[in-house]
C-alpha cells in the first residue's frame, strides 16, 4: 500500500491523526503475522496448561533460568524495535543514510539477543538439561527455539531492508515493503514481551 505525501507526513508526526485508515505494510504480511501469532498463542496456552498440571516441575526448571538474561534480551528487542520505528520515520523524511544506520543499530541489538540466548542455552546444556530432559525443558527449548528462529528470519529481513535503503529503493512514498518488514520485526518483539514474564518472572 503506497502512502501519499500527506499521509507520510502525518505518520512521521505521530500527533496528527489520519483522515482514513492506513494499513502499515502489505495485507499478505498481516495474514502471515496473524498466523504466526496464532501459532505462538497455541504455545502460550500449552505452556500455561502444562504448568498447571506439573507446578513443581515448572518451578524447579525455572530456577535454572536467569531473569537478568531475560531482562537484557527484552531490552535488546525493545530497543531494536524502537530503532526500526525511528528508521521508518527517517525514511519518510527522506533521510536514507540515517535510516540505514538505525537499521544497523536494530541488527546490533538483535545480535545481543542471539548472543545472550545462546549463552543461556549453553548454560542449561552444561548443566545437563536439554530438549528431552522433562516436559518443562521440552517446552522451554521448543518455544524459545522457535522464537529464536523468528529473530534470525527478522534479522535477514532487516538486513535486506538496510541494503535496499542504501540503494535508494524506498523513494517516492513507496514504503510498503519497508513497513511490512518493520511490522514483522515488531511482531517478534511482541511475542517476546509475552514470553519473558511467562518463562522468567511468574512461577
Amino acid at each position, binding site marked *: 500500500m503506497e502512502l501519499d505525501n500527506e499521509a507520510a507526513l502525518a505518520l512521521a508526526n505521530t500527533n496528527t491523526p489520519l483522515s482514513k485508515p492506513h494499513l502499515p505494510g502489505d495485507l499478505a504480511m498481516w495474514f502471515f503475522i496473524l498466523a504466526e501469532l496464532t501459532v505462538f498463542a497455541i504455545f502460550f496456552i500449552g505452556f500455561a496448561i502444562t504448568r498447571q498440571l506439573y507446578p513443581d516441575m515448572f518451578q524447579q526448571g525455572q530456577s535454572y533460568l536467569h531473569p537478568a538474561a531475560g531482562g537484557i534480551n527484552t531490552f535488546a528487542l525493545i530497543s531494536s524495535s*524502537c530503532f526500526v520505528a525511528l528508521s521508518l520515520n527517517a525514511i519518510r523524511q527522506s533521510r536514507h543514510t540515517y535510516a540505514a544506520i538505525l537499521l544497523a543499530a536494530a541488527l546490533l541489538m538483535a545480535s545481543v539477543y542471539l548472543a545472550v540466548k545462546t549463552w543461556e542455552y549453553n548454560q542449561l546444556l552444561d548443566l545437563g538439561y536439554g530438549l528431552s530432559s522433562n516436559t518443562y525443558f521440552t517446552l522451554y527449548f521448543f518455544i524459545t527455539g522457535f522464537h529464536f528462529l523468528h529473530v534470525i528470519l527478522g534479522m535477514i529481513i532487516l538486513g535486506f531492508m538496510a541494503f535496499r535503503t542504501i540503494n535508494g529503493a524506498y523513494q517516492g512514498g513507496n514504503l510498503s515493503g519497508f513497513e511490512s518488514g518493520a511490522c514483522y520485526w515488531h511482531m517478534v518483539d511482541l511475542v517476546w514481551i*509475552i514470553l519473558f514474564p511467562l518463562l522468567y*518472572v511468574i512461577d
Partner: protein
Amino acid sequence: MKSLGKIEFYWGALIAITLFNTFLGEQFESSALVSVLVALTVMYKGLMVIDHFMELRHAHKYLRLMMRFYLIFFPSLIILTAFF
C-alpha cells in the same frame, strides 16, 4: 539539544517496565499480586508497541481490535492462572 520524540519516550517507558518486571522476577517469590502486576504491565507494553511502533492507531479498526484482543487476552490468562 533536540527534544525527545514520542517513540523515544515510549521506548523509555517500555524499558522502565521491563526493569521493574526483571526486579520482580529476581527479588520476589511469585505470588498472585506479582502475577497480576506482571500481567498488567505486559498488556500495557503490548498495547504501546502495537499503537506506537507498529502504528496500528492509524490502521483499520478491526485489525487494531484483533491485536488489542490478543494482548489483553493472553496476559489475562496469567491473571486467571494465578488464582487457580
